[in-house]
């Protein structure tokens, strides 16, 4: 438990390096919701291979690292209703807002984007209230 923050920092640095590579070489903002969303609604089909290559990288590296760990458990709830509701909210919300934790959070705030700060404040606030209500009030998560 005490070393979690070190892994968090190290992993964070890797995430930032990924974003830096995507920006400096490909000239694009590394936002997961935008990269996926552009494929889903068709708005980014002209760059589909670039998007797919990125997503393959995201998917593949954890598979490579997985054997090095004794136990990896994402602790995903088995409550299907929660998963469906959460997925819909995340899908619609990130596309309306044009970004998620990576695009508005990591990429936006690091260039001091006002929209990045406002978006991040909003989703952390809503997430915090959501956890408060659904965990401590209703006890469903």
């Amino acid at each position, binding site marked *: 438990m005490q070393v979690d923050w070190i892994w*968090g920092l190290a992993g964070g640095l890797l995430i930032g390096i990924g974003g830096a590579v995507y920006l400096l070489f490909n000239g694009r903002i590394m936002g997961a919701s935008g990269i996926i969303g552009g494929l889903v609604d068709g708005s980014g089909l002209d760059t589909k291979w670039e998007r797919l290559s990125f997503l393959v990288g995201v998917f593949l590296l954890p598979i490579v690292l997985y054997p090095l760990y004794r136990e990896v458990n994402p602790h995903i709830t088995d409550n299907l209703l929660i998963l*469906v509701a959460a997925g819909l*909210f995340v899908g619609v919300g990130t596309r309306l807002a044009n970004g998620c934790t990576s695009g508005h959070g990591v990429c936006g705030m690091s260039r001091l984007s006002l929209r990045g700060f406002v978006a991040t404040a909003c989703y952390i606030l809503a997430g915090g209230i959501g956890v408060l209500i659904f965990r401590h009030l209703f006890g469903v998560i």
Partner: protein
Amino acid sequence: MRNLFAFAAGGFFGAGLFISGMTDTTKVQGWLDVFGAWDPTLAFVMGGAMIPMAIAWLITRRRTSAVLGTAFPPTPSRKIDRKLVIGSLMFGVGWGLAGLCPGPSIAALSYGGVGLYVFVAAMITGMAIAPFVRTRLEKIVPAE
């Protein structure tokens, strides 16, 4: 070449999400759970990620275009509209409920089990209907 660098960027992103613990929903919900057993890890991840990213943004000021020829993204808009606020609030609710956001949901796809498939399918459905929601929102609020 573009695909190769996109793959590399995705690889760094996926590896970073994995080793930081951000594919563990309990760590994400732990960060949001200010009134419970609060877990500060996410702040270190976010802070760590912003260091190389801020340097990269500084480098873009000294160059006219990206290494592979594309123009850099334009200066960000300062417009705070309802779509940004309502969308981010909606995203936050979903993020808190499941402890998942778009990046980690892809990174954990190989070991997240059936529950994660359900989440990703719902997220993709949400992204597909988002343009219609956006149109409705603009109709209700025409003042933008």
